[in-house]
């Protein structure tokens, strides 16, 4: 005898869920009166600041949020204007964006892709945000960028360093100001050649996710091209905490360089533990053993303390730069919060201003008009020298900083020193370079 599992309530529930699922894309793409998603009504416009406020990158996320709030103040005419005074484009005048006062909502990505997507989705659907920005992880950036493309809003990426963000996962509605793994390697390698020579054997410890793979691939390709040998690449789980069992094999591997493709807390722990294992005191192959950290941040450097002394890495921007834009931003940020801004904060601040500027130049909040205004946009005065948003892949090109852990810092804010400002030409590449190939921007989606 057979028994049916159907119940009236079950059928209704299933029907409701299915209908909601089918309607979601329609909702996200729904054409409103102005032909694009979340066209601002009234005299305000809303931005969504989607940053990690809890979890391993919370400090960075909170610094991003500070910078984004500062950017909103400057856009609305509060404070000293910061980089608006030095930005080469002069269309922003402190009266909001296209006459609308800027408001914002914040979300917590927790540095988890699914949480970040849900947070961004809520900002778009519930809060009516016209643009999403922020983030401290490439996995999150790629996930949120995909969502923004589907929803028809602009995504101005925060800290994302994987080649994939503007490589195989590039999207027409997404833009990255931050540099990438390829650019780090291209800037760092000539300096490493100068200080450590061409006859080296490198051992890589790599965070096992998109950014780590991307960083390791870039560093290995770049250093092998100058003559180094890659002895081993070991993938390590994100958030491993104790890396001792991954560091111990380095001791007798024959390598004389350890490349730590780690970021955040993982980098602080792996570097500290590598020093504890005496790696920096070792002599291998007749040379001093050295450690390289391809991607630095000030917050990580402060966490690593004295362990970072003499260790080379790269950065997108640092407050110690001497240009007018950097000075203006550092002053605004420093006077408001009492300490200098991090590189992540700088990138998010600049992204917010660049979006507002593009809207103003386009004369519209329509994402497709904004995309057009940002593509191949050249600008200056934002702290990195002359900069371009390349239209072919939406990657910003500018000078890259090679940094070294300072030997005698005066405070926790200058634990890193600038060794070299690598000219932009040295870190440029073809949009279809093998490390970036496989993706297409696709069409702009206004949500209509």
């Amino acid at each position, binding site marked *: 005898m057979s028994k049916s599992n159907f119940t009236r309530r079950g059928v209704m529930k299933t029907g409701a869920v299915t209908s909601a699922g089918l309607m979601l894309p329609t909702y996200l793409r729904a054409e409103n009166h102005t032909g694009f998603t979340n066209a601002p009504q009234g005299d305000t416009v809303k931005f969504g600041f989607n940053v990690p406020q809890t979890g391993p990158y919370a400090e960075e996320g909170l610094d991003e949020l500070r910078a984004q709030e500062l950017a909103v103040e400057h856009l609305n005419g509060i404070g000293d204007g910061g980089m608006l005074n030095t930005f080469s484009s002069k269309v922003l005048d402190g009266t909001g964006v296209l006459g609308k006062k800027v408001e914002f909502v914040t979300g917590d990505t927790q540095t988890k892709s699914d949480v970040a997507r849900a947070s961004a989705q809520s900002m778009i659907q519930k809060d009516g945000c016209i643009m999403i920005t922020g983030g401290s992880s490439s996995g999150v950036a790629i996930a949120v960028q995909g969502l923004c493309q589907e929803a028809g809003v602009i995504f101005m990426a925060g800290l994302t360093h994987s080649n994939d963000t503007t490589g195989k996962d590039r999207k027409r509605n997404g833009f990255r100001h931050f540099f990438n793994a390829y650019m780090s390697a291209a800037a760092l390698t000539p300096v490493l050649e100068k200080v450590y020579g061409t006859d080296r054997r490198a051992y890589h410890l790599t965070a096992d996710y998109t950014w780590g793979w991307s960083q390791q691939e870039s560093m290995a390709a770049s250093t092998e091209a100058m003559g180094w040998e890659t002895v081993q690449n070991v993938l390590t789980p994100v958030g491993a905490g104790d890396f*001792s*069992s991954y560091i111990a094999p380095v001791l007798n591997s024959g390598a004389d360089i350890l490349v730590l493709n780690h970021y955040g807390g993982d980098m602080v722990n792996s570097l500290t533990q590598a020093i*504890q294992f005496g790696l920096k005191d*070792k002599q291998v192959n007749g040379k001093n053993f050295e450690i390289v950290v391809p991607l630095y941040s000030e917050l990580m450097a402060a966490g690593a303390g004295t*362990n970072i002394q003499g260790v080379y890495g790269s950065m997108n921007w640092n407050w110690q730069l001497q240009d007018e834009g950097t000075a203006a931003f550092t002053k605004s940020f420093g006077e408001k919060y009492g300490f200098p801004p991090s590189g992540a904060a700088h990138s998010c601040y600049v992204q917010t201003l660049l979006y507002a500027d593009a809207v103003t130049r386009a004369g519209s909040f329509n994402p497709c008009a904004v995309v057009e205004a940002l593509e191949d946009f050249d600008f200056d005065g934002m702290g990195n020298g002359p900069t371009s948003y390349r239209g072919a892949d939406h990657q910003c090109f500018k000078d890259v900083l090679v940094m070294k852990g300072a030997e005698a810092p005066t405070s926790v804010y200058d634990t890193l020193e600038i060794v070299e400002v690598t000219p932009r030409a040295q870190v440029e590449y073809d949009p279809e370079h093998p490390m970036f190939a496989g993706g297409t921007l696709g069409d702009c989606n206004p949500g209509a």
Partner: protein
Amino acid sequence: MDAFILQILNGLDKGSAYALIALGLTLIFGTLGVVNFAHGALFMIGAFVAVTVQKLFQFSYIEIDETKKDFLGNPLKVEMPYLDHWFGTSVGEWMQDWSVPLSILAVIPFMFALGYILERGLIKHFYKRPHADQILVTFGLAIVIGELVKAFYGANPIQTPPPSAFLGTIDVGVMLGFDPNAIAYPTWRMVYFAFSVVIIASVFAFLRFTTFGMVVRAGMADRETVGLLGIDIDKRFTFMFGLAAAVAGMAGVMYAPILSPHYNIGMDFLVLSFVVVVVGGMGSLPGAVLAGFMLGILQSFASMNEVKAVFPGIDQIIIYLVAIIILLTRPRGLMGRKGVMEE
């Protein structure tokens, strides 16, 4: 061979932390029958006691150095530790250098009191509730403690170095007849291993050779009968909760130089430590210690490149794999009492 010995040392060192936390968890489960998901948070608080003592020892007054500028171009504010001012530079610097070992003096009474208060104020209300309720309330407590620590100290790891006398490595290889520098192991990690052995031995000795310990063991075996003899076993069990918190706190303090403390450090250890307890046998103190060291060593070997080349990703699942095998073949764990977890 040298790589093999290095991984054994690594395993012993990892296992020390697992064993210390699992020991505390087992003490609480064995006495009070409570599944304490806040135990990792107690380990974390211990680590932050080390951070706090370090910060207190570095507490400074400001002197203006007109010759240097800060990031805004103002004269640089230089921090001068009060300890140097009060006791002279040599004593002040020594205290700052030895802040981690000195933290042990603070962590024992602090964690014992905290454990006592937690048990009396919260945990005792959940004795007769299902394990699921206990897990929920203690897990919630762990989240609250973590967020409070984050609010005070931020989310970034905080460097807590060991005394400079324990920086660097010990050439274990030479002691074992290998070439110099073939097996060099960080000095502080060796100290941690020795410390954990002393603590574990002390807890066992306390339970084995004192009247108090004998009563507690009797209470663990048959609480009601001990109560019928006119002994207030609840008071003793509350003491054991305090003791377990103090052990977790000491483990946290001494681990701070190995893994820079951050607000989530307890969660990193909690799940693994529960697996250790289950593998060792719920309620079995020797089982917790044995399983702690065994799983630590297994995890270290699983991280070797040679092993990962054959079984990719094995380092991340080995502990759970072993737990599954042991639970399938011996549900009460390695040294669990017959009947426990077997019904």
